[in-house]
């Protein structure tokens, strides 16, 4: 679609919104399993509302249903952002129930149930992509960032022209390398954080207000 067509689709009111900024946005926390999405959601809620989003676990796919909280206000000096925060299940291309049994010691029945629910969770996460205004993409700063899931999520959001903020999580770990993440995705802001300890979350909040406070226009899927 050419720029002329994009411009033609925009209504006058949305152009005004773009100029003056958007103060209420639906923000999704996305990423592969076990990168700390719910830990981050809990950190944001605890810092700004005193609430929490959900339970966390070292076993992947702990969050198997999307959870959300509405009207969370983040202040950043003179400006602020009111958002609905959606904590999504981890997106992956494969789920093997035997991994839950062999690596984490779950029973066969528990493992199969967890795997089945996890597949449904991935589908739900992808469905939520249709309905959000921006994404905090959580990556594990100790892992290789070039996973297909990361690339696919970023490509999908870029195709829709949605703002992305990459949270390079687990920066408190000894082998964390946020520089690798920054060089892998130079087109998006990368904020190194520890959702567990709260390290550098102030910077994350500042960047969220700047990044998500502006109205963007979702493109139709190609």
């Amino acid at each position: 679609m050419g720029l002329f067509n994009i411009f033609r689709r925009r209504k006058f009111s949305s152009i005004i919104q773009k100029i003056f900024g958007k103060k209420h946005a639906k923000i999704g926390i996305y990423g592969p399993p076990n990168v700390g999405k719910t830990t981050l959601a809990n950190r944001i809620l605890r810092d700004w509302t005193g609430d929490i989003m959900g339970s966390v676990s070292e076993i992947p796919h702990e969050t198997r249903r999307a959870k959300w909280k509405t009207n969370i206000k983040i202040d950043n000096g003179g400006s602020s952002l009111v958002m609905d925060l959606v904590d999504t299940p981890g997106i992956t291309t494969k789920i093997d129930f035997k991994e839950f049994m062999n690596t984490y010691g779950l029973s066969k029945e528990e493992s199969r149930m967890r795997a089945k629910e996890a597949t449904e969770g991935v589908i739900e996460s992808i469905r939520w992509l249709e309905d959000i205004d921006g994404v905090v993409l959580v990556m594990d700063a100790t892992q290789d960032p070039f996973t297909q899931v990361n690339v696919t999520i970023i490509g999908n959001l870029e195709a829709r022209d949605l703002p992305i903020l990459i949270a390079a999580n687990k920066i408190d770990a000894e082998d964390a390398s946020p520089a690798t993440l920054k060089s892998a995705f130079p087109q998006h802001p990368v904020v190194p954080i520890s959702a567990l300890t709260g390290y550098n979350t102030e910077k994350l909040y500042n960047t969220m207000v700047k990044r998500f406070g502006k109205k963007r226009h979702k493109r139709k899927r190609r």
Partner: protein
Amino acid sequence: MIKKETGISFNLVSRQKLNSFSSVEKLNYILKEVKDGRILVLEQGLTATEQTTLIKHTMKEIDHDTFIGIEMGGYGEEKTSFFQRVFGIIKKPRMTVIGPAHLLKMVHKSNDMIETTIIPGRGAK
């Protein structure tokens, strides 16, 4: 009688064949081939939106005993210039490898190299 080979099928799929499919047909074709135990190298890969849809379809097909999902690796879409965008020229997805997760494992991926390994002892059906 010709004895059937029991190796792993590794199919290189041309851009022309992929272009002959609609998006839905392409995803159905890929998923069927991969479920049948074949590893595909697509000359022209999938758009990010197609990849997301493929993941969604894959999740519906996982049965936990015979199919645990897919392994997929591809280069990012080609960047388009300002003038290409003005004239509505869309980004072209690049080469992508897709296979069943019990057979194919992604070792390392960078901007210029996708390194995979085939899990031994798991021949195609």
